[in-house]
């Protein structure tokens, strides 16, 4: 359906039913709730540090207009000043002393005009502080963090798909003693929160000498119980006849896995891939534990570096958060078709 006709969809053609009004109001509220924060984030990421701290806050990134005035080195801020006779003049402020402001007319820099501060209104314009984006990439090596995150996400997802699909294959296609016990154990690990195994896994990783290497982030989480379960449920729905037909066709078990089961599990694999990408991209606690050198930082750890104990560089943090969100958003945009069909098909059929 074309999006235009979708957006004007009504209960009965041509007529606006009250349910239409309620539905659209409800949907609009949902859109506002979900996209409001994101919009706020994106707009704020273009604000200067001063604009971020401003109260009351503005939605759009605004900055005060400045002007270069003869006799002053720095650009001066422009104000609209209401004079005593009621006229409004646009003046540049030299300095502020208590509740008095000293301003000059940019056209006549010699004459200093003193007015109470409540008589002046700052002149503002839209300004995008692009430096929020460029500076961290230059100063903090965010490009490298980005690269690390991409590497971790891609490699870990590939390994996850391979290992999980093989486990799911065994747990769904074969009959063997202890099969259900094995599955229960796999699912049981879902109940153990990462905080509990953090220390032991850290010790293992340290023993293996993998600290401060990206493999320390990739390997421990490669086999996910969720993934095994998801794929197993999907593989259970594959007709047994197909597997048996392949056996009659002299296919080895490896070939059955690679040529028959994997291609047919593609929708579930896509779902798992999307999940894995999101998990890995947003992973924070574990990388924080094993990555201590900045050259192996992933994006999430890099972002954390902007949050000091005493001071947080909000403008950088916001801008880099936007950068961090982009890839996952793109993944969603291009793979959302698989998510809906895949989740609908996993397990129940």
């Amino acid at each position, binding site marked *: 359906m074309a999006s235009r006709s979708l957006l004007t969809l009504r209960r009965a053609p041509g007529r606006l039913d009250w349910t239409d009004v309620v539905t659209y109001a409800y949907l609009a509220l949902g859109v506002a709730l979900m996209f409001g924060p994101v919009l706020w984030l994106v707009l704020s990421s273009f604000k200067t540090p001063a604009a971020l701290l401003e109260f009351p806050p503005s939605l759009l990134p605004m900055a005060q207009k400045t002007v270069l005035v003869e006799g002053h080195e720095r650009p001066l801020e422009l104000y609209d000043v209401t004079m005593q006779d009621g006229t409004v003049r646009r003046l540049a402020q030299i300095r502020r002393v208590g509740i008095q402001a000293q301003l000059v007319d940019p056209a006549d820099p010699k004459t200093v005009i003193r007015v109470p501060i409540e008589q002046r209104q700052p002149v503002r314009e839209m300004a995008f502080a692009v430096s929020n984006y460029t500076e961290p990439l230059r100063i903090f090596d965010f490009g490298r963090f980005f690269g690390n995150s991409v590497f971790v996400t891609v490699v870990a997802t590939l390994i996850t798909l391979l290992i999980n699909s093989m486990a799911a294959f065994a747990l769904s296609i074969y009959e063997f003693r202890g099969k259900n016990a094995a599955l229960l154990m796999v699912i049981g690990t879902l109940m153990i929160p990462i905080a509990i195994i953090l220390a032991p896994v850290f010790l293992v990783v340290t023993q293996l000498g993998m600290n401060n290497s990206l493999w320390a982030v990739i390997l421990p989480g490669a086999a996910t119980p969720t993934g095994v379960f998801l794929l197993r449920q999907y593989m259970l729905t594959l007709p047994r006849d197909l597997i*048996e*037909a*392949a*056996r*009659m*066709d*002299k*296919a*080895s078990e490896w070939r059955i896995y690679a040529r028959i089961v994997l*291609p047919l599990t593609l929708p579930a694999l896509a779902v798992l891939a999307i999940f894995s990408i999101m998990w890995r991209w947003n992973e924070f606690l574990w990388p924080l534990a094993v990555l201590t050198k900045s050259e192996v930082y992933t994006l999430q750890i890099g972002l954390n570096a902007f949050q000091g104990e005493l001071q947080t560089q909000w403008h950088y943090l916001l801008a880099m958060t936007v950068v961090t969100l982009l890839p996952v958003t793109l993944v969603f945009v291009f793979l959302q078709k698989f998510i809906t069909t895949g989740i609908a098909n996993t397990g129940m059929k």
Partner: protein
Amino acid sequence: MAGLKLTKICKSYGRVDVLRDIDLEVPDGAFVVFVGPSGCGKSTLLRAIAGLERATSGRIEIDGRDVTDERASERGLAMVFQSYALYPHMSVRQNIAFALENMRLPRAEIAARVARAAQMLRLEPYLDRKPGALSGGQRQRVAIGRAVVRDPKIFLFDEPLSNLDAELRVATRKELAALHAEIGGTMIYVTHDQVEAMTLADRIVVLNAGRIEQTGAPLDLYNRPENRFVAGFIGSPRMNFLKGATTQDGRIAAQGFAPIDAPVARLLPAGAACEIGIRPEHVHLVDAQAADATAKVELVERLGGESFLYVRLADGAPLTVKSAEQTPARRGDEVALRLDPAHLHLFDEAGRARRLD
């Protein structure tokens, strides 16, 4: 191509015995049909032969070689599944070639064999389609092509026609018979449809409750069933059964009929209870004076060339009569019947057939 020998095959799931002491020999090149009611174990037996199911005990030999412990992929058999089991993500060509690739044949050889099979089964226009884009009959042919292309020792068919509509089933049945005549392989075919069994088989194996009831050529089973089960199972409409007994003077008194002079009566002692079987075509509509019994017509099926009358005897026993011509009889009419003494089947109390020859 090869012969098959089964010795004392048993299969049980837990306490349930599905197959009991199956002994069977299938000669090279034969078309053997396993037939029986659902749940009789015929599919299990086929799967045991295929190697998809392990027999609990017994021995399977193919071409004189013991394959009991070999896996399905090692036995060199091909199977056509009831669901066709075509690989949905592969084109017809890939489906047919899959087994050949697994056998690591050279590429040119694979292409040649696929082309030959496609030509034989008229699949050439569809080679690049996915199974989802084919009709039921075409899928069926692809499934057969997948088996044929391998040149297997034995072809196994598991109710291959049951998913087709009636017309296509008849057409495919003929094609299968033609295929067997053309390539001459040993074929084992499972069905619950006795028409398929009768038309396709060189030999029919009738199974019931995990046992072989009788093995033989189709007409042998029809004309000379060894027991009541086979007599009732083979033939459509099924054979009529009447309770009866032998009389003191060596005749047979069937329930609702006047005593009949039948040579088979000699085989049982006088006064012994028995069951009399008679096929619908051997119950004749006659004039009242020649009749053994009269019955009331309940339903008439007029097929044009022949008619079936479903009648009820005076004592309430139902009977089916086949008339080779169009009959004027209507529902509610009284008809006079006579049984053909030469075609009476006599079953003793254990259900075994008693026959003179």
